[in-house]
């Protein structure tokens, strides 16, 4: 009899697994369920990766990542956000934000420490916190337009609270935080001596507001681990490359785990990331423009169909309410899929606050998106 780790056994399987199997069994599906860009990685970035292989760079790099890449990212953060990080001690190149998230949780959490996670949220925060041994407090942001309400955060904070996870712009809601809300949250974070894990992987896709990285707020730099990466901004999901910046002490601890569990991020991808950091701006801007056009289409159409949907500030997701249909999200998504061959993800996959919602990804070609919205309209008429 094989006995598994009780922590692992207690984790629920990913909420979208069943659904994935169902989608795969069908033909002619337009999927609005994809959490990655539909664009191909810009060619000059792919070329940099290919060239590195041709040149024979297929060996390990320094644990922290190639100095050239760390320098390029630090220079970029300084230029764009006036964020100063020392490339030697305050940045770690990771195999995706996914790895970085796990490292941060493990580097910081002692048994009994509490992690506060606003929901609905990206699927990895809860499991990584749990696997690191944390107690997790979920805060439903649905009543507050999917923004963490400072009063509710104040109420939730206990002596055991250690970490708050923020993600803006958000997967799955598309919400971002403006300056005044960030300042209110910062006040509490400082007052209660919390550490913030700030997942800003969609920062490049902020449509109307200016994205404000959390560590740019006064006194937050020394208590924030800032995550960003290339998966979304440069359509490089499969290259598995990202970075974390933060105080030397935390980055050092994360590096310690990383050197044993990952050794280094993929070398080929590090070369691609150098090119993306130094020359990716135009490609990022043109993809952003296209996403924004789609966002406007989706937002307008969903609201016209009566699926109440807040205007997404960023990322490539819309998170409309399906309450008026009387269906729960899983039933809604299954019916929509079987009757109209359109796939979306039930809001319940993202934790409390998603019970009456579905996630629609508009990382989908514009014409396909129009067709999918038309099919959703037909589906709603058939109910």
């Amino acid at each position, binding site marked *: 009899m094989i006995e598994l780790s009780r922590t692992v056994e207690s984790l629920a399987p990913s909420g979208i697994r069943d*659904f*994935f199997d169902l989608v*795969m069994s069908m033909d002619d599906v337009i*999927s609005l369920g*994809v959490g990655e860009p539909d664009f191909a990685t810009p060619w000059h970035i792919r070329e940099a990766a290919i060239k590195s292989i041709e040149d024979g760079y297929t060996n390990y790099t320094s644990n922290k990542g190639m100095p050239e890449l760390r320098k390029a990212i630090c220079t970029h953060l300084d230029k764009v956000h006036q964020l100063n990080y020392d490339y030697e001690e305050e940045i770690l190149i990771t195999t995706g934000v996914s790895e970085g998230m796990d490292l941060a949780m493990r580097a910081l959490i002692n048994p009994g420490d509490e992690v506060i996670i606003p929901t609905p949220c*990206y699927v990895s925060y809860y499991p990584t916190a749990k696997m690191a041994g944390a107690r997790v407090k979920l805060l439903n942001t649905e009543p507050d337009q999917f923004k963490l309400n400072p009063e509710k955060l104040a109420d939730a904070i206990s002596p055991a609270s250690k970490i708050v996870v923020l993600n803006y712009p958000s997967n799955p809601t598309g919400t971002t935080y403006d300056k005044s809300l960030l300042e209110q949250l910062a006040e509490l974070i400082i007052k209660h001596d919390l550490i913030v894990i700030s997942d800003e992987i969609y920062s490049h896709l902020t449509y109307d507001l200016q994205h404000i990285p959390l560590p740019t707020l006064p006194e937050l730099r020394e208590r924030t681990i800032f995550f960003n990466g290339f998966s979304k901004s440069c359509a490089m999901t499969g290259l598995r490359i990202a970075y974390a910046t933060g105080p030397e002490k935390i980055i050092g601890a994360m590096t310690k785990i990383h050197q044993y569990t990952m050794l280094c991020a993929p070398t080929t991808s590090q070369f691609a990331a150098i090119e993306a950091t130094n020359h990716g701006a135009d490609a990022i801007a043109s993809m952003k423009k296209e996403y924004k*056009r789609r966002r*406007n289409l989706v937002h307008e159409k969903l609201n*016209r169909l009566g699926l109440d949907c807040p205007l997404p500030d960023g990322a490539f997701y819309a998170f409309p309410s399906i309450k008026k249909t009387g269906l729960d999200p899983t039933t809604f998504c299954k019916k929509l899929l079987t009757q109209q061959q359109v796939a979306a993800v039930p809001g319940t996959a993202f934790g409390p606050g998603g019970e009456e919602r579905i996630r629609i990804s508009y990382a989908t070609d514009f014409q396909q998106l*129009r067709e999918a919205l038309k099919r959703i309209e037909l589906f709603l008429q058939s109910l």
Partner: protein
Amino acid sequence: MDRLLELLEDNGRMPLNELAGALEMSESEVAKKLEKFEREGVIKGYKTVIDRTKLDDAPQSIIGLIEVNISPQPDTGFDQIAREIYDHPEVRSCYLCSGDYDLLVWVEASTLNEIAEFVARELAPLKNVHKTESHFMLKIYKEGGLYFEPPTSDHRLSISP
């Protein structure tokens, strides 16, 4: 370029309500803008891109791309002679180019012979035309941004977090 034009350049049949949605404008504002572009000739017209190889009944069309060398005229430069050429109904497009030739003339007809006739009878004898070189189009891969061959396929998983 104006966002309305970008959307229509992509899809000339996008309905008003969707244009309005994508542009965050009212339908009547969009309609007014559209009318202005049409009136001013910014929008020349709306055409359909057809893949004729998918039709069994329609006569196949032959497309000739003809490079034409002409002598520019003292007053009118290339314009007058170009007009004499592009006014022919067989000419679908006509461009003045830099390089080895002056005009690129896109001619469409239902047989090779018709194109040959056009070149021999209408084009080559023109007073200021001194050389033509004809190319026949064999296959369309992409036209006006639209793929005639299936585009590279989407490798993504259809559901991901």
